[in-house]
């Protein structure tokens, strides 16, 4: 059944959209990543114009994070305090990101920025996580307990001014690195149409050694707030949010996210990190292939703008 999308200006199959939303929602609930880094390219692949794909993904991410964070909240696996600090930084980054996004759209360099950022980020984060989690799994086989955090240990950035205690995350750190982390993620997330969860999750696990279960819930909360702001800004500035496309994706997404969150709770920390690393690497390789492999067609139509 074809559904005409009023802003994307093309008809797409309703069940295809529901299925896409569901699959990405599952991954989102499972890993605490927004899933936009999969959804945006998928939408572009099925023909949605790039600005609409980026702007509309943020709605889907917001909805699946609502359902995911509520599930984690009820399981006491959401650090509201940590999440709020990240959000504060995220807001700054989001505003900068939307302004940057719009400039890039005018200049037409958006695809280059998107592709290069994707590849660099996904590949480096994915490789680091892959190596670490394999190591942890091997250690565990040998019978040694996998410990990411040693009691009383504080790294240099954790000793910066304005310390704060996060009970639920079982850690204390300076607020400054958390704000900076939030800002970077907000910026990248807005420009690329991704929640930035695939950066938050590893950063909290490795840099701040927050327990994995709490990381996912907290990351989802931070993504939720960031994406609400991003959706509003996209709607006002780029006017590329397609409400019909968004709602179709959201219906699939919230259901998928529920199943994802349940599955996620059953995974061990190391298994979780390995699976996330693999997911990130797969996406990274796919995008790397885009810029390293010889293009099938040297030419492409980058933008089509109707005279008004």
């Amino acid at each position, binding site marked *: 059944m*074809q*559904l*005409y999308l*009023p*802003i994307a*200006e*093309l*008809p797409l199959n309703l069940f295809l959209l529901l299925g896409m939303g569901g699959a990405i929602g599952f991954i989102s609930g499972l890993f605490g990543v927004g899933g936009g880094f999969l959804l945006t390219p998928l939408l572009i692949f099925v*023909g949605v114009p790039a600005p609409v794909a980026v702007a509309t993904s943020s*709605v*889907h991410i*917001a*909805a*699946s*994070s*609502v*359902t995911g964070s*509520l*599930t984690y909240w*009820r399981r006491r696996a959401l650090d509201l305090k940590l999440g709020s600090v990240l959000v504060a930084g995220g807001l700054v980054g989001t505003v900068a990101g939307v302004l940057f996004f719009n400039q890039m759209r005018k200049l*037409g*360099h958006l*695809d*280059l920025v998107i592709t290069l950022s994707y590849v660099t980020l996904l590949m480096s984060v994915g490789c680091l996580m892959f190596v670490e989690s394999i190591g942890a799994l091997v250690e565990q086989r040998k019978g040694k307990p996998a410990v990411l955090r040693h009691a009383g240990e504080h790294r240099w950035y954790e000793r910066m001014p304005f310390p704060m205690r996060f009970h639920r995350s079982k850690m204390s750190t300076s607020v400054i690195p958390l704000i900076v982390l939030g800002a970077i993620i907000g910026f990248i997330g807005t420009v690329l149409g991704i929640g930035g969860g695939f950066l938050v999750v590893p950063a909290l696990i490795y840099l701040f050694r927050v327990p994995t279960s709490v990381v996912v819930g907290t990351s989802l909360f931070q993504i939720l707030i960031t994406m*609400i702001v991003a*959706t*509003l*800004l*996209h*709607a*006002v500035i780029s*006017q590329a*949010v397609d*409400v*019909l496309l*968004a*709602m179709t994706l*959201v*219906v699939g997404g*919230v*259901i998928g*996210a*529920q199943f994802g969150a349940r599955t996620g709770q059953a995974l061990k920390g190391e298994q979780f990190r390995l699976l996330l690393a693999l997911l990130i690497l797969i996406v990274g390789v796919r995008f790397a292939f885009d*810029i*390293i*492999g*010889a*293009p099938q067609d*040297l*030419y*492409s*139509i*980058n*933008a*089509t*703008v*109707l*005279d008004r």
Partner: protein
Amino acid sequence: MRRSPTTLAGFRRRLAAALGLALLASSIPAQAEDLILALSTREVAITSTYTGAEITVFGLIERDARTIARTGGYDIVAQVQGPTGEVTVQRKGKFGPIWLTDDRQKYAKIPLFFSILSSRPLTTVVDEAVREKLQLGLEFFLPKPDAQPGRRDADDFGFRNALLRLRRDERGLIEDPKSITMIRPNLFTARVVLPATAPTGLYLVNLTVLAEGLPLKTAQAGFVVRKVGFDAFVANAARTEAWGYGLFTVLMAVMMGWMANLVFRRD
């Protein structure tokens, strides 16, 4: 003096030929065919179930008693021109190990939908000069190659060809030599196929009757493609009430996320 029969016959033949020529010469302005068009619809409405449209143009070639006979019959060609816009074509180049966009070319004010309709392959109907006169090709809407100072001809040629090829792939440029059907020697239908991605706006159908490769008469008809009902409401709200539209979208997303949580709650 008696004229030889052969001379008389020759004179008669010359007279007939002269008269014939005079008749032919005087007939051209007075006896040209008239062309009458009617469209199956004047408005294509985009609703939630829109997957493209098909419009039929009915045409009648009107002749009167003085119109001379066309031994080869008529040919019909038409171009359908949609709203204009700007298309940016980019080209990738190799920089070390990676492929990046190294050049781009903007084409402003070109029709974002363009189709050429005929009853048989276009090259068998018109020659290059007539094709250019009737603008049967998107290439006639592109800037002339020399209008791009500082760019090499080869580059320009590459971009122009790529634009035409890519627009064909995207169905923004359609050449259909089987879309005009002659029902009677002077009655025909032209089928205009609009893909779902054809932009909203005004469309102009420019239809020409030809005989022996020469255009006799041209007529125009127009139709409009626009969003109606829910789709028009959404598109309008997104543009004029951006804040409200954004807030509504966010609210819907949050509500749906919350509801899913209630539905799936087991404890």
